[in-house]
């Protein structure tokens, strides 16, 4: 999932510059930027375009700049600091970095430490207490919280799990945010994530359609065998 990210980052300038110069350069690094991934990286090192949505200068004192940056996945903060230094003509490098958001996962969404997770697991394994672990772990469905959703009738679930496309009669509910050509999450009426797919219709078309393919799944998540099969033998792979 290529979700956007947000960081808080300390950049050390190699010589002091006026705050207004720093702010001007930060504005220049907002928007579409070109970056070559650093030497030590796990991707091909060709120049790529990334969007920097916002750079907020939180504090600037001495040669240290504290900034909050929100950007596309795959934007290197270390590189960004280095390039800002280059543009300022004084040089700079990254001193500290903390990611404060990945997609929907902010520091406010049930953030836990390894220690708390291991305590929750201990309470469950040794005392049979499930409450801590149910609080530490969230249902995977939160991954699609920002995606428009289509809810399936029970009879459509197992065929989607087995690779069928979603046809209009399989739809129980549809979100008003569903747009043709964009990703949608397919859920069961109980709320389970079945698959993520590309919608072939806007939501009002989904509501009105009595036939035709509504969604082409791109990734099935739910396991097979959970929901009853509603199609006849010898019909595998056909839309419901």
């Amino acid at each position, binding site marked *: 999932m290529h979700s956007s990210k947000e960081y808080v980052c300390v950049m050390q300038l190699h010589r002091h510059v006026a705050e207004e110069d720093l702010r001007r350069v930060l504005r220049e690094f907002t928007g579409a930027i070109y970056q070559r991934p650093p030497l030590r990286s796990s991707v091909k090192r060709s120049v790529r375009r990334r969007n920097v949505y916002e750079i907020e200068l939180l504090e600037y004192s001495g040669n240290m700049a504290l900034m909050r940056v929100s950007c596309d996945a795959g934007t290197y903060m270390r590189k960004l600091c280095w390039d800002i230094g280059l543009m300022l003509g004084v040089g700079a490098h990254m001193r500290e970095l903390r990611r404060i958001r990945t997609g929907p996962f902010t520091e406010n969404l049930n953030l836990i430490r390894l220690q708390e997770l291991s305590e929750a697991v201990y309470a469950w394994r040794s005392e049979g207490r499930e409450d801590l672990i149910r609080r530490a772990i969230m249902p995977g469905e939160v*991954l699609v919280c920002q995606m428009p959703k289509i809810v399936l009738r029970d009879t459509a679930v197992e065929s989607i799990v087995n690779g069928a496309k979603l046809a209009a009669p399989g739809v129980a509910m549809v979100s008003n945010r569903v747009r043709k050509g964009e990703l949608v999450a397919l859920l069961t009426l109980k709320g389970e994530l079945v698959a993520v797919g590309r919608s072939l219709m806007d939501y009002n078309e989904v509501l009105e359609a009595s036939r035709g393919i509504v969604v082409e799944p791109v990734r099935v998540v739910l396991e097979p065998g959970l929901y009853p099969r509603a199609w006849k033998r010898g019909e595998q792979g056909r839309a419901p």
Partner: protein
Amino acid sequence: MKESVGVDLTGLGRRFIEGLGGLCGFEERFHVKVDEGTGEGYGWVPTMRPIAKYIEYGVVNLDKPPGPTSHEVVAWVKRLLNVQKAGHGGTLEPPVF
């Protein structure tokens, strides 16, 4: 599933679905195309999955300490939870960190 008998699964499911967007500030309204409930005896409302399944389909928003790499942390958590598949940073392989 015996424990789900008598529980209003359709209502609980609907509440879960309608609450999902709100977890991350995503606003949406649902329109009913076919007014139909969900059956008992198969599937679970995600928050009510039996614990092993709950973990298998779970995600953790983990505050990774500086030092160990994401890969190392994933390996620890896999062993801690005794799960076969785990990923991080947005893969859909549950649990995800």
